[in-house]
């Protein structure tokens, strides 16, 4: 092991292992995860090539092969529960380009469970589980994304044959982007506008067969293919789909909610609120994914910064580890704190979800909407922060961060997709804001608000009471609460002002976008801070005091950094003064120094195996340079000492020029 990184591990004030248990949710879970990792990483059938060196075509082939092998192994090891299967796939795919059939497992199957009748589930689930039917979820179109009411694909009921006719009427109505759609799926759930008896009833899900199970050729009327290379995830094929009057039986519409009867009568669904549940879970999962992606980036950058030495501080002195530079700490430690914050926020959200599920069983659905709203906000907020955070980590590694050897470009390329999938972040913030505005007017008319938004109706505080550094943690939540409250009210006033000035509602709304998005972010930020603070101070947190104390330091950094970065928001109404801001900024320097000796242990605690990190800069043993060289030698350009382009282009030129002399 590299001696510098060894020393880092020895000087930590806590045991990384203890913190790993906290992150995993208990020691037994850590054990289980590691056992699975051991099985997978030692299985020669489940090794995967470094996709950095493959063409898109090779990468896609390798990923498909790997996915099938994964399913075989799941059967072989008799892994039964959905949760365990998901964990197996997650680990086996190394969170890298190797994942090939996620949509089948994560979207296609859950949609049938969530939207299919019992009879439909009985028919399809066995076929899906034994992978006879491989499917995808086809919603977005070439010309239509987040706004699903705008989709153009139609499903028209033909009572004569008891069939739906699925059709893409225009170029812009082609399905575009669904994962696994291009070549792997033989079925898809196609979201289309339902027409029956000449009337449109909005979008509904339809099960459509795309390819023959005999020879896998597309069925008549089906045009399907790959949409081309992307920023990353090229081992994973996104597809396009054009349907030319494709007929499917009536019972292929998923009818748990809305129904179409034999004669074409449309039956409206009852409340759709319950369907939010699966969306909440998906967004909790996204927040966790964002946390893990950011944590991976931090692991790579912090370990490398402990190994890398640069620039002498005193003439002739030894070059210090770059992790000793305050500017480097200032880049990395806030990102590290944010990664922890998102772990705990997704955990809390999950707990709230479970609680609310109980409430729903007793018929109380009041909390469903605020829960759905905070999950939307959290997906947007965490992926935004992650997006910048990964880039900060990459840039903190200097030139080497730019090489795929570091793993960071690939990590960024894959993770940044979180900002635009499943609802573009801006649109999600505006949805959050829409709900907050409703709450603001309810509060104004004296109605009680659900827990998650109750703060909006509190009487506002005038002044932050912090006098010195030790007060901060006790007043952290109230600072963020105050900011959220003020910005929600400010957005509501902006809307009101526009309306009073005679603007139509949609215009007023559009003219207030900036204020609305600010309010939504502040609301979410407040939630994250509250989760983090409650978590580290919770009586239920059973872990040694030295772990608690290091978490408290991280939490305080998260709090202070957020105030420092958004100082204007807190100062705008005089709630926090210039002196208090200076106090907070000063605290940050101190916190960075406190975290410094624990930095490597804090990333070790994430417990990402080298196989998962896929980074030579971030390897556990710190033998960075040796591994970089080994990695570079594998570059296909190095196959021959003299590249073929020499014979084709360079040699003729060099020789022609030589004769001229």
């Amino acid at each position, binding site marked *: 092991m590299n001696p510098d990184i060894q020393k880092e591990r020895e000087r930590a004030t806590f045991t990384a292992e203890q913190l790993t248990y906290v992150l995993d949710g208990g020691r037994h879970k850590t054990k289980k995860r590691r056992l699975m990792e051991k099985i997978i990483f030692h299985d020669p059938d489940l090794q995967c090539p470094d996709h950095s060196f493959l063409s898109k075509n090779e990468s896609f082939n390798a990923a498909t092969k790997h996915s099938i092998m994964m399913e075989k192994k799941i059967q072989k090891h008799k892994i039964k529960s959905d949760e365990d299967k998901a964990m197996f796939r997650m680990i086996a795919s190394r969170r890298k380009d190797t994942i090939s059939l996620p949509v089948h497992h994560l979207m296609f199957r859950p949609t049938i469970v969530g939207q299919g009748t019992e009879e439909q589930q009985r028919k399809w689930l066995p076929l899906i589980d034994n*992978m006879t039917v491989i499917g995808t979820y086809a919603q977005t179109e070439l010309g239509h994304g987040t706004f699903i009411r705008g989709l153009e694909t139609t499903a028209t009921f033909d009572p004569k044959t008891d069939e739906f006719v699925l059709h893409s009427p225009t170029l812009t109505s082609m399905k575009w982007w669904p994962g696994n759609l291009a070549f792997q799926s033989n079925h898809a759930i196609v979201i289309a506008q339902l027409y029956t008896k000449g009337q449109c009833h909005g979008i509904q899900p339809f099960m459509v067969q795309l390819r023959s199970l005999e020879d896998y050729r597309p069925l008549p009327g089906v045009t399907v*293919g790959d949409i081309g290379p992307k920023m990353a995830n090229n081992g994973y094929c996104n597809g396009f789909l054009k349907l030319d009057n494709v007929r499917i039986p009536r019972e292929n519409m998923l009818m748990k909610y809305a129904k179409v009867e034999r004669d074409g009568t449309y039956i409206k669904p009852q409340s759709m609120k319950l369907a939010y549940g699966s969306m909440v879970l998906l967004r909790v999962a996204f927040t966790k994914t964002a946390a893990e992606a950011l944590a991976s980036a931090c692991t790579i950058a912090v370990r490398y910064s402990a190994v890398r030495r640069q620039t002498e501080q005193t003439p002739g002195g030894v070059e210090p580890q770059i992790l000793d530079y305050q500017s480097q700490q200032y880049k990395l430690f806030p990102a590290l704190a944010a990664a922890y914050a998102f772990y705990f926020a997704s955990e809390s959200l999950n707990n709230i979800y479970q609680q609310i599920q109980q409430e729903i069983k007793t018929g109380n659905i009041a909390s469903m909407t605020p829960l759905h709203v905070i999950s939307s906000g959290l997906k947007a907020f965490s992926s935004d922060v992650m997006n910048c955070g990964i880039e900060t980590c990459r840039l903190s590694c200097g030139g080497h961060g730019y090489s*795929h050897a570091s793993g960071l470009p690939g990590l960024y390329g894959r993770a940044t997709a979180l900002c635009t999938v499943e609802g*573009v972040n801006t649109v999600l913030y505006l949805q959050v804001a829409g709900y907050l505005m409703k709450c603001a007017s309810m509060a104004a008319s004296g109605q009680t608000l659900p827990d998650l938004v109750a703060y909006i109706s509190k009487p506002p505080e005038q002044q932050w009471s912090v006098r010195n550094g030790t007060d901060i943690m006790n007043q952290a939540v109230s600072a963020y609460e105050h900011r959220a409250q003020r910005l929600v009210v400010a957005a509501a006033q902006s809307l009101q002002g526009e309306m009073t000035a005679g603007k139509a509602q949609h215009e007023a709304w559009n003219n207030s976008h900036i204020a609305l998005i600010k309010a939504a972010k502040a609301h979410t930020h407040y939630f994250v801070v509250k989760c983090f603070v409650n978590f580290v101070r919770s009586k239920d947190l059973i872990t040694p005091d030295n772990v608690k104390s290091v978490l408290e330091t991280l939490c305080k950094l998260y709090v202070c950094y957020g105030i420092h970065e958004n100082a204007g928001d807190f100062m705008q109404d005089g709630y926090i003064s210039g002196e208090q801001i200076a106090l907070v900024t000063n605290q940050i320097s101190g916190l960075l120094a406190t975290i410094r000796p624990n930095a490597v242990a804090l990333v070790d605690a994430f417990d990402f195996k080298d196989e998962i990190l896929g980074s030579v800069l971030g390897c556990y043993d710190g033998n960075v340079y040796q591994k970089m060289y080994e990695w570079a030698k594998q570059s296909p350009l190095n196959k021959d000492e003299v590249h073929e382009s*020499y014979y084709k282009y360079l040699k003729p030129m060099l020789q022609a020029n030589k004769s001229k002399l």
Partner: protein
Amino acid sequence: MPVNPDLQRERESATFAVEELTHVKDGGKGKTVRRRYIESLALNDSDFDWSDRSFITRDEEYSLAVKHGILIEQKIKKYNITDQEEQNAFRNTVMRKRQGNAIGLHTLMFIPTIKGQGTEEQQKKWLPLAESMQIIGTYAQTELGHGTFVRGLETTATYIPEKEEFIVHTPKLTSFKWWPGNLGKTVNYAVVMAQLYSKGKCYGVHPFLVQLRSLDNHQPMKGVTIGDIGPKFGFNSTDNGYLGLDHVRIPRTNLLMKYAKVLPDGTYVKPPRDKLAYGSMMYVRVAYLHMSAEALAMACTIAIRYSAVRRQSEMIPGEREPQVLDYQSQQMKLFPQLATAYAFYLTQQKTYQLYLGLLDDLRKGEYSSLQDMHALTSGLKAFVTSAMSNGIDVCRLSCGGHGYSHTSGLPELYTMYTHFQTAEGENTILLLQTARYLMKCAGNAMSGDKQTGQVGYLSDTTQENSNIKSESDVLSFEELTNVYKHRAQRLVKEAAMKLQTEMSNTKQQHVAWNSCHIELLTAATAHVHYFIVQAFIDTLKTTEMADSARSILTKLCQLYAMYGIHDNAGDFLHDNYLSPHQLSMVTKQMVNTFALLRPNAVALVDAFDFPDGILASTLGTYDGNVYEKMYQWANHSPLNKDEVHDSYKYLQPMLTSKQSKL
């Protein structure tokens, strides 16, 4: 195909003459004409293969980059492009298309280093060989374990007087040269930076000409280990390389000896103090400003045209979906970036003038403004490249999912240009260099020594509160400049004071310095930001242009300044220089400006004048037929060659084994 009607309407709604603004951006009509001529030579020459690189392998990409690299130099001769700037513009066309040039470093670094550091005799020997491309070279400085800190390099060149030779050697793995462009597979020579040892003493880093590959068969020379460092975020057509040297012998005369010399007996002759060398470093940094402005302008062009074509969500129930460019949230993403791109173009023009002035001074032996300019260009390079990189990503994300596809051109634009942040001086280190100079000047100013040049404001008295009284005051260039000036004054002085306190606490200069990094970076950023606001305003005032162009540029300039205030509100509220009320007025005026810019948005990106051939983006095409072109592009994907993909061989066994169960 006819132009998309939405885009057509946008162009008709513009209130200024696009062509006029193009001239301003280029620095004059004459320059526009020449630029277009140079671009068209490159784009219309059928010897180049401009087909989309998204669909080929890295190996194919590299081969193409070799072919193009050679062609570029041949075409420059053929078309008789003799002006240095224009030659670079011709070469740069390739980079702007995100295509590769595998011998780019030969003309960019190798030849200039021989010119700058070789004696006349050395130039006479090597330049004809290099210019006629009998030898192809690169510049090898950074090592696996050593980057920005040049004194830390480990490669050695030890002089052996008996043979009149240097032995060039990389003693450890960490001393392998790592990253130099074109090094891996293409070049046969390099200027290698190494620690010079003579008579048992080390004299620091010097440049040595080393032959790496045989001129007959391109095999590596004895003792030379060389290869490609592997795929990267961007620039994959380039063979960035590694180089290990095992006691490679070169003649004494291969040390470039314009400055330092080693005599045959091994006596080291110290160079005279050389300040001219700073000049070329600054030149590269000023060039980065221009390339960054262009990269951001390309991203804006793509995102704004697409936002005019893309329609989404209904604002009014039942009505047609609006263009996404109509959403305030979309304007908040794109218009500040648009203003920033213009700010950087005009700042570059101003900086280039200052640079030319400095060169004049240096030639006259007048060095007084050297440090001031060096500090400014270092900070500018850092500020501009990081704003550009973030800005491209904002533009990409504003295109929703489609921005993620290579069809948009945005991923490649980002991955290619983001490397400006770490190349040629890592940004944080550059800002700290700027800060070091500022701290010195602040100290001098506080002790009453009047400062001049870019730091002159440190000697000015500070105003306590802004004079802004009304919303129209917010638009006043004078008031906007004052706001930035005050912020820079305050943050530089606060950093200096903190540094002083830390010094008296710790007594160790480097410890004190390290504990103030946060404040130092903030101060340097504020200094540069202030300069950009001034430069934008100055260039706008002093450049001749049509009234309609001036009026729209004025709005962009105001927007740039107001957005910076809005975005860094805490800095201005901190000491009550701006009151909360004044800040609200700034935000309000910023939003008002959006409305004025909206009908001009497409014309403003048209004025950047990127031909489709350079933009290489289906989302950003001039005619706006986005969806047709996306579909055509997707059909080129090699995976679509067969309706049933090769990988069916993995699916089939699984499917057929279960078929009976259906």
